[in-house]
């Protein structure tokens, strides 16, 4: 059943509903067999992008290319795209088996072939004992697997998934996450995945497209997004807790940055990950004096809420046997390689060379 995946290219995709511009020119592409995730806050246009790509909605402008062929004007049914919907969209009046084979039936695939495909997919997704049940008689995880099975049975070269794990509990989510990833790798299907959960995006994808208000904020590998956020939006979206962004005046800067601040009159933001900073960093490249506002215990780390002298709040993720005491004054520091510099005005990253 390994339908080898096909590539997808999206060029300057735009969608407006009346006067509201939901997508304002989105570009990205996935190579055949790749796993790309659209990540972004609620309402940034992720589902809209999927609807345009699948053909369920028409584009306002832009192009969609599948396997190098333009499909922008084609009907949804002619694009050979599979889709897993956010709430699974299982047909409530059909049994699991009927749900899975519905597409085959519509396309008039021979009965025997239908049954063979059903059997194979049901085994793959461990659904064989459940085939006669109605969707309402299944658990969330089982429904999820039926939705996946329905897409797999059609042997589509590319599958779109709209927050497929959002209704599941944390444990199941991790389980199915790796199942989806395995399907992508084993079967070679191209996957375009949508989520607002960054840990899902970072752990599964080859490439992440981070979206903000209908525009692409950054495209890159999960590591790119984490290690080199291109702008303050990415910096403050990726990471739990996300990167601290401190004003230059709150930080004791090394000479090469300090000279830059005065030379260019640039208003800099200094970004640093909470888990990178360490306490008592007087002799670190960067340091900041601050008071401890409160401490949260998170299991493996303490989240220490700090306040700079000018009152700006930021967070330190402290590993260690015990945490600083609230009310106390500490100095936190970090090295040159761990500092991210952003322009306050444009929000863009400033290369730290």
């Amino acid at each position, binding site marked *: 059943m390994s339908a080898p995946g096909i590539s997808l290219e999206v060029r300057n995709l735009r969608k407006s509903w009346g006067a509201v511009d939901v997508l304002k020119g989105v570009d990205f592409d996935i190579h055949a067999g790749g796993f790309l995730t659209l990540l972004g806050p609620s309402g940034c246009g992720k589902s809209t992008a999927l609807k345009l790509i*699948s053909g*369920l909605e028409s584009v306002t402008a832009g192009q969609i290319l599948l396997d190098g062929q333009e499909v922008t004007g084609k009907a*949804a*049914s002619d694009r050979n*795209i*599979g*889709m897993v*919907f*956010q*709430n699974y*969209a299982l*047909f*409530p*009046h059909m049994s699991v088996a009927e749900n899975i084979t*519905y*597409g085959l039936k*519509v*396309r008039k695939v021979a009965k025997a072939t239908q049954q063979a495909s059903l059997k194979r997919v049901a085994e793959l997704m461990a659904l064989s004992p459940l085939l006669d049940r*109605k969707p*309402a008689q299944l658990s969330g995880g089982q429904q999820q697997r039926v939705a996946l099975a*329905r897409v797999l049975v*059609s042997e589509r070269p590319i599958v779109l998934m709209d927050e497929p794990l959002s209704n599941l509990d944390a444990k199941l989510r991790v389980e199915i996450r790796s199942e989806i990833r395995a399907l992508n790798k084993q079967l070679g299907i191209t996957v375009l995945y949508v989520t607002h959960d960054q840990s899902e995006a970072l752990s599964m994808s080859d490439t992440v497209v981070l979206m903000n208000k209908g525009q692409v904020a950054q495209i890159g590998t999960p590591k790119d997004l984490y290690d080199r956020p291109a702008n303050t939006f990415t910096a403050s979206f990726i990471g739990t807790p996300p990167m601290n962004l401190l004003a230059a005046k709150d930080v004791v800067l090394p000479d090469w940055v300090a000279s830059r601040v005065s030379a260019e009159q640039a208003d800099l933001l200094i970004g640093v990950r909470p888990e990178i900073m360490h306490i008592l960093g007087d002799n670190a490249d960067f340091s900041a004096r601050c008071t401890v506002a409160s401490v949260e215990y998170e299991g493996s780390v303490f989240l220490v809420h700090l306040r700079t002298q000018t009152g700006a709040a930021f967070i330190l993720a402290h590993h260690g046997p015990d945490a600083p005491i609230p009310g106390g004054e500490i100095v936190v520091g970090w090295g040159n390689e761990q500092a991210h510099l952003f322009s306050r005005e444009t929000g863009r990253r400033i290369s730290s060379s």
Partner: protein
Amino acid sequence: MNKRLPFGLAMVLLFVPCLLLVAFTHYPALRALLNSFWNNASSRRPSKFVGVENYQTLLEDDRLAQIMLNSTLYALGTIPLAIGLAIGMALLVNARLPGTSLMRLSFFMPTMLPMIAVANIWLFFYAPGIGLASQILGVFGLPPINFLGSTETSLVSMMFVAVWKEAGLFMIFYLAALQAVPENLKDAARLEGASATRIFFNIVLPLLRPTTIFVAVNALINAFRLVDHVIVMTRGGPNNSSALLLYYIYEVTFSQRDFAYGATLTVLMVCLLGVLAAVQFWVLNRKAHYQ
């Protein structure tokens, strides 16, 4: 909100509705049941207990047989048609077309009008010679028909009015049900390559089934309770061709003043409606949900 009602007021609020219920529903029903075992009183002799004699009359009543047939035909003829029409109108109104709210209003209008008004309007439409229906026939060069005045057409003409009036009401139910059909189910079917017609029959129609059951059983009950149209339009005539059960009860009881037999017929109708209501609850509980 947690203030407690004074005990006296609570009792008043409890007893007034109960009293109304007993006075106008339970007591008359019981009274009818009792009356159906007694014969009519006259000036010369008082009413006396006759057992099931009235029920024997009922079984031998040719006129009743005709009327039950009429009622059944009426139900079978109007309900599927009205449901079909209602689904069609609901689909039309639910589509994103210009002017749908106006359409919605015009479809629903017949339902908002009082029965008597509707019947009078149609009385005029059906008037032989001068009525709209006859004039339309005239345009096509067809001879006028006395719609309400002939045994062949009176029942059908009344059924037509019922469909016209009921379909608008049913449409509202179907419209609500259609709007509750999740968009992504249709999207999923579309991606599988299903045509719009196919989506309707495979996805939408099955999801409308609970509504259809609800509407059908209610319509069935209404069909046996209908009386207003009959009184205004045909008075059951000619020759009982358009008489329905409730109208017959009305006639027996208040025109012929045969209270005993009227009571017997009432018991028959209450039993019939009871059975239909029971079927409705049973079917709705068992079949109407996909949970």
